[in-house]
Structure formats: structure tokens, C-alpha cells
């Protein structure tokens, strides 16, 4: 009996060593585990479209009686695929009956998810299939939101993004500037807040998408204009500069973290060397071109003002490796430091207090 328990314990350890932080052991014996499963292609997180947490709970008769397997949570899988995943794992468990199977079951799940690692179904925005059946239009790219894995056609989600930004700008004053920059919108499907990283991913995809799809159907045409705009070109230019810095640093800087994303970023003009005068000129040229930006002139001015404000933090961050939030944090902490230094008595008092407590 004790030997059996030890064997099972070793199996649990094996799962832990394979899955590391993705494996949570709830009970050692009889074993109960939660394992986060990602497809094998998930090294590039933007290429990961599915994810699942499976719960495995074995009874004292394990491995003669196969463990119960359940789906604790999943992303990117509809009901049909969830059921398929679970059924296949349970099948495997029956096949392996009376063998040690904990690792094998997890591996099976990884295998299955790797096969399922593509978006499925219709785009929630336009209701047309995410992955068109005729291969002709393959480059109508889809994308997923990084936080919730809900997938959309790139141009659909971007159209909505642009729409949201315009709405925000016409409602100037309702949201504080700083606040507005943090969480930009909500997933149309689950309302989970967009993170900056979600948009980075969209924008990176757009740039690769636009290079492919200059002569596609009418939807692509509309976006084509947007994607060929000066600001978009500038954005890509800046991204390449940052990439170069990264290469020079032996890849120590991650490109994604470098790409600073702000609202309406792909219509933000270059930050590098242009004076503020030309900046505004650029913007006025771009706005009529951007089909979705149909603002009246007064709100347009407000938009420009806002943009100028929004642009400021980017200037700080060019060539830096920190995401925007961190930069802000650093700035504020240096401000605090200098304030403290300036007021020596305060600092002194703090120290005194500290020593007295010791």
C-alpha cells in the first residue's frame, strides 16, 4: 500500500516537473491536480489561440480506475471543441487503465490543443467566418485579444477601436486624460478590458497584414488607406528603430514591451524629430483620409489637443525598454525622490523616527 502511494506521489512530482508553475497540486494523495495546458506552438503568444486548465482527480483505486478529468476553464474553445477535448482525454485515460497516466494525459491534452490551435467560428463583429474557406482571401487576417482570447477579423476589431476612440474624444471631459489611457475598451464579447498589450498585438498584426493585402476586396481597400497613412508608416519606422536597438543589445529588449501604444496610435504622427507645427499639419491631412474618423471641426481640434498630450509620454520612452506604465511610475518616483532631497528636515525626521523604533 505504502509503495503504491509512493509511486503515485512520484507521478505527481513528474507532472510538476514537466509543467512547473502551470501545475497546481491540490492533494498529493489521492492526487488532485489542476494543469494549465497550452498548445505547443505557444512560444509566440500571439500565435496561441486556445488554452485550457484541466482538473485531474484520482481516487484511491488509481491507476486501476482512471481519474476523473474535467475542464476547469478554457479560452478560445467553443462548446464543441471543449467537449471534444475532454472526450479525447477520457478516452486516453480508459486506454491507459492500470498504467501510470498522469503525465500521459497532460501530454495528450497538449497534443489535442496543438491541433485545435486556430480560431474557429464567425467573427462576432461581421458574422462572417474568421478563417475564410476559400484560400484566396486567407490574408483577411484575424486576431485575438490577448487577455480573453476572443478572436475577430483584424479590420473588424480595428474599426471598432477607432470608433471607440472617436467616441471618447467627442466626450472630452467625461474621462480624465490619465484614466482614459489605461484601459481603452472592452472585449465586445465578454467585456473584459482591453489591455495595452492587446492592441500592440493588433497593431503588429496590421502591419504584417497591410503589407500582404494592398489589393484586396473593399474592406481591405478601406483599411489599406488607413494602413498606408503617414502615421502608420511612422509607427512602423519607429518600431524598426526600436528593433534595431534591441538587436544591438543582443535581444535583451523585448520588442513588444518597447512598442508603446496609445489611443489611436496608428493615426498618431511621428514623434521623432518633427516640430509641433508639422505634427499638427500631418494630423489634419490624415484625418479626412481615415474613413472612420469623421469628426466635426471643433471636436477635431479637441482631438488634436488631446493627441499632443498623449504624445508626450512617448517622447520619453523612445529607445527605452520599459512599458509606458513603468515609465510613468519611474517618473513619479524620481519626482518623489527629488522632493524628499529638497526638504532635508523631512528626511531627517524620517530617519529619526526609524531609529527610535529600533
Amino acid at each position, binding site marked *: 500500500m505504502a509503495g503504491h502511494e509512493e509511486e503515485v506521489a512520484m507521478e505527481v512530482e513528474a507532472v510538476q516537473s514537466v509543467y512547473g508553475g502551470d501545475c497546481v497540486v491540490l492533494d498529493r494523495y489521492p492526487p488532485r491536480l489542476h494543469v494549465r495546458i497550452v498548445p505547443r506552438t505557444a512560444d509566440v503568444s500571439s500565435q496561441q489561440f486556445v488554452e485550457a486548465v484541466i482538473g485531474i482527480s484520482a481516487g484511491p483505486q488509481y491507476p486501476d480506475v482512471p481519474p476523473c478529468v474535467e475542464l476547469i476553464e478554457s479560452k478560445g474553445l467553443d462548446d464543441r471543441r471543449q467537449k471534444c477535448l475532454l472526450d479525447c482525454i477520457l478516452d486516453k485515460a480508459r486506454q491507459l487503465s492500470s498504467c501510470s497516466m498522469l503525465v500521459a494525459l497532460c501530454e495528450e491534452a497538449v497534443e489535442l490543443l496543438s491541433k485545435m490551435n486556430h480560431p474557429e467560428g464567425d467573427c*462576432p*463583429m*461581421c458574422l462572417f467566418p474568421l478563417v475564410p474557406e476559400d484560400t484566396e482571401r486567407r490574408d483577411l487576417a484575424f486576431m485575438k485579444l490577448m487577455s480573453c482570447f476572443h478572436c475577430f477579423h483584424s479590420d473588424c476589431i480595428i474599426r471598432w477601436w477607432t470608433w471607440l476612440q472617436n467616441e471618447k474624444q467627442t466626450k472630452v471631459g467625461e474621462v480624465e486624460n490619465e484614466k482614459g489611457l489605461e484601459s481603452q475598451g472592452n472585449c*465586445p464579447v465578454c467585456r473584459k478590458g482591453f489591455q495595452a498589450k492587446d492592441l500592440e498585438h493588433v497593431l503588429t498584426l496590421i502591419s504584417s497584414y497591410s503589407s500582404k493585402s494592398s489589393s484586396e476586396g*473593399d474592406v481591405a481597400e478601406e483599411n489599406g488607406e488607413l494602413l498606408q497613412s503617414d502615421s502608420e508608416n511612422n509607427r512602423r519606422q519607429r518600431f524598426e528603430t526600436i528593433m534595431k536597438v534591441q538587436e544591438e543589445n543582443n535581444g535583451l529588449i523585448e520588442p513588444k514591451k518597447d512598442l508603446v501604444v496609445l489611443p489611436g496610435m496608428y493615426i498618431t504622427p511621428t514623434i521623432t524629430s518633427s516640430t509641433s507645427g508639422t505634427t499638427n499639419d500631418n494630423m489634419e491631412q490624415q484625418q479626412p483620409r481615415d474613413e472612420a474618423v469623421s469628426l466635426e471641426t471643433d471636436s477635431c481640434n479637441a482631438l488634436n489637443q488631446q493627441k499632443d498630450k498623449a504624445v508626450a509620454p512617448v517622447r520619453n520612452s523612445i529607445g527605452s525598454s520599459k512599458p509606458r506604465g513603468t515609465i510613468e511610475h519611474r517618473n513619479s518616483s524620481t519626482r518623489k525622490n527629488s522632493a524628499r532631497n529638497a526638504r532635508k528636515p523631512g528626511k531627517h525626521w524620517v530617519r529619526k523616527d526609524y531609529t527610535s523604533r529600533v
Partner: protein
Amino acid sequence: MTSSSATSRKALSKIASNRLQKELVEWQVNPPVGFKHKVTDNLQRWVIEVNGAPGTLYANETYQLQVDFPEHYPMEAPQVIFLPPAPLHPHIYSNGHICLDILYDSWSPAMTVSSVCISILSMLSSSTVKQRPEDNDRYVKNCRNGRSPKETRWWFHDDKV
């Protein structure tokens, strides 16, 4: 005349019309239970018959919803009202305006006519009393010149019905 009612009269954009055609096809294949789309050649205005769900206060009653789509649907929410006579409900005004967050602030472009219909039926079904909203007379008087409910600043305070 405010801008928003002006936009609602603008023709559908190409994207909006593509999406609506898709929704119409899906509706014909798989209509939500209790609803019937009255066929017209007007894609921009749907009139939908609602049957009160069995076992609820509105069982065996039929009402009509009018759904008007804005130029930039589904970025913008459709305008949904009950045609007279509107059902007696604590969130439905006598002019047919419906106080339901997803029709206004909480609209998401992933919603469809079908999902909106289901929400409205669910709102009807969970009602425990047949009465007008408390501020009905005041509100309806304010809307007399044909104002769209989308221009109302709604307060959503009751999540029970």
C-alpha cells in the same frame, strides 16, 4: 434636431448592410423562440412580433418591436422601441421606449437583433407586476416631439426585472 436622430435616418453603410443581411439570413434559419420578423423590403427597419412567454404575466399577449438601424450599425446600437400598445412593464414607457442598458450604454457590436430580442423577452418574463415606470408621464411628456430613446440619459438602477 439633434445629431443622433439625424444619423439614424442616414442610409446603412456597406458594412452595416452586409452585417444585417447576414443577421437576416441567420434569423430565417434559426429565429429566436417567441419572435417573428415581419417581412418587408426595408433592411434598415425591422418590425418584430413578440409573443409573451408561457407561464409569465405576458403569456398569450403579442406585441410589436420596431428596430431601426443606424448608419454605422453594429458600432452604434439599433434603436428599439415597442409599437403601441406597449406592454405594461416597470421598464417600458407608454410611448414604447424601453429602459434596458444594452440598448444604450452597454451596447456591444457583438450583440445581434436576435440577442437583443432575447434580452427583451427575458426582461418581460421576469416582471412580477404589470405597471408603468413611476416617472412615465413626465418622461413621455418630455419625448413628445418624437425624440429617440437613444437621446435619453438613462439611469439603470434595477437589475431585478
